[in-house]
């Protein structure tokens, strides 16, 4: 009996020690989960990892598990996790998908927290408004961007052309000149211009860029849901002309498009600031000739918010606090500046890049300038259904431009489809 009591006392003591130890462990080792499709992207992932390392250094006992999820299934994975009650602690999202999370009530309002850094938000990206839903701010924009024209200087010089085009008319003309059979075997070795001509979001990007030239203040639809028929017809007609001239290789998706430009098999393409990664990946001898310029659409620029950071509503308040601290660090001048120098992307915070840096990085100058003037790619009233809207535009554009179906008939079908959407 005495032995038994002694054992019980020892066991109790051990349990108490264990409990304190465990409690201490919990308090000291918090793991925040942050999935991202950018976790393996050269440049961008280096910046994320450096930011995470700094956050962990500032918050001993807190670690961030930065995991990779493929972009193609990223949104489905996140929605499934939220619906299943298992959201990540720090939410990194493509801006185009933000509204799904906002309407489901999955994101914590950040207004009170943002008030603490109001001076920062005053100089934040002009597309920060995409994070607003029903009067609340639910995210912070990571990257606001404008499209640029990637052009191959060597190809232009070989054709005797002075510089990149500045209007779509010039683009069509120049693209024709740059489309050449250099080896004389009857096959085209270099196309003038390249854009995706199979089912891909890049089809919408290209068509919208042309549309903005015709109607800088308009979009595919207005707030009443009426199609901008004249501007769409203009955009499709210009694209048709490029294809009719044989200036565009057919059958490529966005990756194929980039590949063609990087390998010198296409002289021009439209792309976001992530084009820098493509330039860096080009082979020696080609890379030096790959340049960026303003898009040739008479001053209008396709762009908007690329991706955002948010805090899930249904996680522990302590974790929410830590997630916010991470976002706060992300908005700091130092890390915004490093977004340009390490990730090679234009920072969302204005005024963090000094003149010396910009002078040494003319492409960055261009990216920052275009991001500040870009027109948002989401038409009015379409944010909640943007993915479906974009797919409708892609299919309609392919039907009108590549399959050369009657433009009016395609417009009528598009109008009916968009009416169903609204």
């Amino acid at each position, binding site marked *: 009996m005495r032995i038994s009591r002694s054992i019980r006392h020892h066991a109790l003591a051990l349990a108490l020690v264990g409990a304190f130890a465990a409690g201490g462990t919990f308090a000291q080792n918090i793991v925040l989960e942050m999935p991202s499709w950018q976790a393996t992207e050269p440049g961008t992932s280096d910046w994320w990892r450096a930011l995470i390392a700094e956050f962990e250094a500032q918050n001993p006992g807190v670690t961030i598990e930065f995991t990779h999820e493929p972009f193609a299934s990223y949104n489905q994975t996140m*929605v499934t996790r*939220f619906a299943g009650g298992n959201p990540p602690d720090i939410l990194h999202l493509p801006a185009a998908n933000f509204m799904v999370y906002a309407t489901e009530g999955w994101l914590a309002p950040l207004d009170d927290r943002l008030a603490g850094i109001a001076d920062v938000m005053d100089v934040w990206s002009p597309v920060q408004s995409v994070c607003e839903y029903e009067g609340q701010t639910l995210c912070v924009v990571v990257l606001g961007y404008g499209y640029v024209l990637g052009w191959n200087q060597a190809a232009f010089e070989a054709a005797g052309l002075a510089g990149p085009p500045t209007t779509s008319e010039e683009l069509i003309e120049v693209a024709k000149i740059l489309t050449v059979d250099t080896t004389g075997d009857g096959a085209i070795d270099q196309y003038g211009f390249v854009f995706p001509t199979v089912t891909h979001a890049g089809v919408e990007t290209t068509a919208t860029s042309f549309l903005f030239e015709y109607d800088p203040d308009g979009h595919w639809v207005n707030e009443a849901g009426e199609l901008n028929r004249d501007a769409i017809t203009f955009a499709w007609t210009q694209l048709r002309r490029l294809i009719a001239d044989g200036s565009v290789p057919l059958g*490529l998706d966005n990756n194929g498009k980039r590949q063609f430009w990087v390998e010198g098999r296409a002289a021009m393409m439209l792309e976001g600031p992530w084009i820098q990664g493509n330039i860096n990946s080009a082979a020696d001898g080609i890379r030096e000739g790959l340049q960026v310029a303003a898009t040739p659409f008479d001053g209008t620029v396709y762009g908007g918010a690329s991706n955002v950071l948010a805090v899930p509503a249904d996680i522990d308040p302590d974790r929410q606090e830590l997630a916010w601290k991470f976002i706060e660090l992300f908005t700091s001048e130092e890390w915004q500046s490093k977004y340009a120098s390490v990730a090679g992307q234009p920072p969302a915070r204005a005024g963090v890049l000094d003149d010396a840096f910009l002078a040494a990085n003319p492409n960055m100058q261009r990216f920052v300038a275009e991001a500040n003037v870009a027109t948002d790619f989401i038409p009015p009233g379409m944010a909640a259904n943007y993915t479906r809207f974009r797919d409708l535009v892609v299919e309609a554009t392919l039907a009108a431009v590549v399959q050369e179906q009657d433009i009016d008939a395609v417009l009528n079908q598009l109008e009916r489809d968009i009416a169903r959407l609204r």
Partner: protein
Amino acid sequence: MIHSLARRRRFTSAARSRLYAFALLAPAIIVVLLVIVYPLVIAGQMSFFDVQVFRRDRGFTGTPGWFNYRDMVENAAFWRSLQVTLGYVFWGTVGSFGIGLFTAVLLNQPFRGRFLARILVMMPWPIPGVVAATIFMWMFNSSFGVVNYLLLQVGLIESSVPWFTRSGPAFFAVTAATIWKGYPFFTVTLLAGMQSIPKELFEAARVDGANAVQQFRHITIAALRPVIGISLVISTLWLFRVFDIIFVMTGGGPSGATETLAIQIYREAFQYFQMSYAAAVGMVTLLLSVIATFVYLRLTSKSFY
């Protein structure tokens, strides 16, 4: 009294053996109920509500109705997908069955290297759909694909065909990949069926003066009818739900030319988050599959031996 006792004993024994049988079947029944019947019931229920993202904690709210089915009937994209699905299932089945029957007949003949030939013919079967789709994407690539190269070499075309930018060629490319992936199934089943046909039937037919075509038509095909029936059912059900090949090759494009009901269900549920509408399309697809199964089995269930 003795009779009654014996009957009770017999009854108890029969009941016990039935109970034993059910006990043995129970795990399988439970699994089927959990992984097939339960999701089916949930999907059926969901199709009558307006759910964007399904959450078990919320359940189904709002007034149930036929609105998703009404939307579906009024949606041109649904009818286009239905048409694409029927075309895809038809050509996929015809192509796979044709090549499968041809290769089965070939491999049923004795010749040197038959073992190796059987392995080669079966190769597409274990290859994952995504891999098969990638192979065919390269083959049909408009710039450097081998299909365009061969067609140019033999003079059938004058310039490269952009396979994935036009409706007809894209549908052809996707169907070709599907047939390639699907024909070995027919080869296996039909070859097995052919080897079980009694040799005496052919000997008797030869004695009666039947030629090779007559033997093939009146013995081989007639004897294979139940095998053909069940193979067609399985293949059709597979084709109704093929997703990987189409999604990887075309994503359902261009302009919906290869968007089957399976692709539409996926896009509605996981790209546009209209899960109730997707469930409604799923129910219709299920109904079509059931109808196709009944039709095939009625047409081919009779065997002459």
